[in-house]
């Protein structure tokens, strides 16, 4: 690992054209599994979310989850795909201990969705159309834990343990056609593509799409061909690159690695490669060979899925706006510049923004709070900003500040309270007693107290040195523990001087 020779990225791109392809697996968020009534839930004690089918018990039979089919069709439609009039399942036969039946029920020659296109937006707003070959339904495998040996990895382990809780979780595998023309932006496109798929499945509500949980997994194919050559180069498939950042890095690494080999007159081996997050490198996995004979054949235990035109129309009508269209619409509505808007997208806060504005906040205020204080807290804690507070609470908070009931500074304290789980902004204001003191009597009392210790201030003001009021205002604010409107205090001090 790490011993690979690399060409510089710039030189690699100058000499070779990268061709990309992606297989993204999306775990659907159905209640139960693809072919059994066992719960589809992350975690749980090992082998407790299993039905006979999930363990491949003799005599058990699969039955298709209708919700999974509906989700798969919706996803196919959102990817701009045609939905097959007749689609069927097939068995992919290979032995592996995490595969209970030693075949995976997948789709082969008749996928549920085919021939689509996804619009992907790069960081600078450039739009790239990624062609989709197919999206098909299949089942997930169980989980292996390798025990013994130092690394917890497969090599050197003494034995392995198998948990089939994940076995049979419904998946949709989205396969792109070869993607040409990305050039030096190939790594960025890779990240943006996966982010787009994530946004699409989230907006559809068909998957939680949490990459860290493996809800969304990306296998990235890449090949290089010398400039001017028509024939595609040999590709590698980098497996399970499980964060957006890793997708970008892995593609970049593979381009540099392959280019170095080709540059030295070598040949690329068609193989799977493993991404190592820690070192930022890939290492060789299983070579593809003639021995890969999956012996696909139509799954005899299942019948064709033939979605009616009515069902497809119903699901199409229920599709949410595409993320790209959504973005264009919001930017126009908010009147943000490209750069203002991109900050929101890059912070992955568009949906939160939209909901905050929908709840009544002004776009500029919403942007200020989300990209400001909330993002600051999120970054400090290393979590997604959207997980800290709901858009509704943000809009309530903004309303409190706008109406003068809170100062910005108090608003930040209220935010802290909401994030800490103390309740809604109103509840935090009440519980912490944070409201601005708007009672002039209380303010005047505090002013008089401050003036008592600084008797010369009023004279200075009368002499035209209005800035002398600052010392009194500061003292009052301190006495009121910040819960006063400084502007009002100033007005009152000036009134006193004229009295």
């Amino acid at each position, binding site marked *: 690992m790490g011993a690979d020779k690399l060409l510089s990225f710039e030189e690699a791109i100058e000499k070779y054209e990268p061709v990309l392809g992606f297989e993204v697996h999306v775990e659907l968020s159905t209640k139960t599994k693809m072919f059994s009534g066992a719960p589809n839930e992350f975690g749980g004690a090992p082998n407790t979310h299993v039905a006979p089918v999930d363990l491949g018990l003799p005599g058990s039979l699969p039955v298709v989850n209708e919700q999974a089919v509906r989700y798969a069709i919706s996803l196919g439609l959102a990817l701009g795909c045609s939905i097959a009039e007749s689609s069927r399942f097939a068995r992919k036969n290979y032995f592996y201990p995490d595969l209970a039946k030693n075949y995976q029920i997948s789709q082969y020659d008749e996928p549920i969705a085919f021939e689509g296109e996804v619009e992907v937006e790069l960081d600078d707003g450039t739009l790239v159309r990624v062609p989709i070959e197919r999206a098909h339904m299949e089942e997930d495998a169980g989980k292996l834990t390798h025990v013994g040996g130092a690394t917890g990895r497969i090599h050197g382990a003494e034995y392995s343990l198998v948990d089939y809780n994940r076995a049979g979780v419904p998946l949709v595998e989205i396969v792109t056609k070869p993607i040409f023309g990305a050039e030096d932006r190939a790594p960025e496109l890779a990240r943006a593509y996966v982010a787009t798929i994530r946004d699409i499945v989230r907006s559809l509500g068909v998957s939680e799409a949490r990459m860290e949980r493996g809800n969304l997994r990306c296998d990235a194919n890449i090949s290089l061909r010398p400039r001017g050559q028509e024939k595609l180069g040999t590709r590698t498939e980098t497996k399970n690159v499980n964060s957006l950042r890793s997708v970008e890095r892995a593609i970049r690494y593979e381009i540099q690695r392959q280019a170095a080999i080709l540059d030295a007159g070598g040949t690329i081996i068609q193989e799977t490669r493993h991404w190592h997050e820690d070192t930022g490198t890939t290492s060789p996995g299983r070579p593809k060979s003639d021995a890969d004979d999956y012996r696909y054949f139509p799954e*005899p235990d299942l019948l064709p899925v033939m979605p009616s035109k009515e069902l497809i129309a119903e699901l199409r009508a229920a599709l949410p706006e595409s993320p790209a269209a959504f973005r264009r619409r919001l930017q126009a509505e908010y009147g943000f510049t490209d750069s203002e808007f991109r900050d929101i997208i890059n912070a992955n806060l568009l949906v939160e923004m939209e909901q905050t504005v929908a709840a009544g906040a002004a776009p500029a205020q919403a942007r200020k709070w989300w990209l400001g204080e909330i993002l600051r807290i999120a970054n400090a804690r290393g979590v997604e900003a959207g997980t800290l507070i709901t858009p509704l609470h943000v809009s309530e908070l903004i309303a409190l500040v706008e109406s003068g009931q809170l100062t910005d500074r108090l608003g930040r304290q209220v935010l802290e309270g909401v994030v800490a789980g103390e309740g809604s902004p109103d509840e935090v204001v009440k519980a912490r007693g944070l409201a601005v003191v708007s009672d002039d009597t209380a303010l005047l009392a505090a002013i008089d107290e401050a003036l008592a210790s600084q008797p010369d201030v009023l004279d200075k003001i009368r002499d035209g040195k209005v800035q002398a009021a600052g010392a009194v205002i500061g003292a009052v604010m301190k006495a009121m523990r910040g819960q006063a409107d400084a502007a009002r205090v100033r007005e009152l001090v000036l009134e006193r001087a004229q009295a």
Partner: protein
Amino acid sequence: MPDEPTPISAEQVQHLANLARIALTPAEIEHLAVELGSIVDNVRKVTEVATPDVPATSHPIPLSNVFRPDEVGDVLTNEEALSGAPDAADGRFRVAAILGEEQ
């Protein structure tokens, strides 16, 4: 397809046994090569009438859209799940170290 016999080599049988993950003795392999050759000679008769205009039938009674509602059922307890396991530990099935990679 012509009528000449289809010899199946021992290597071919070994390859098939690897795909099917069955350890065979050399004697079994030799024996199977001969038997398979003669069986295949007989069954390839299907190619005589399987012309391109004939559609394939994979289910004897055609049905479609057979679905299950997305409702929990048939869940086994951990004890039931492991009841037939040759070896288990920590609620999981235990197997010897794995040589090959995930597919």
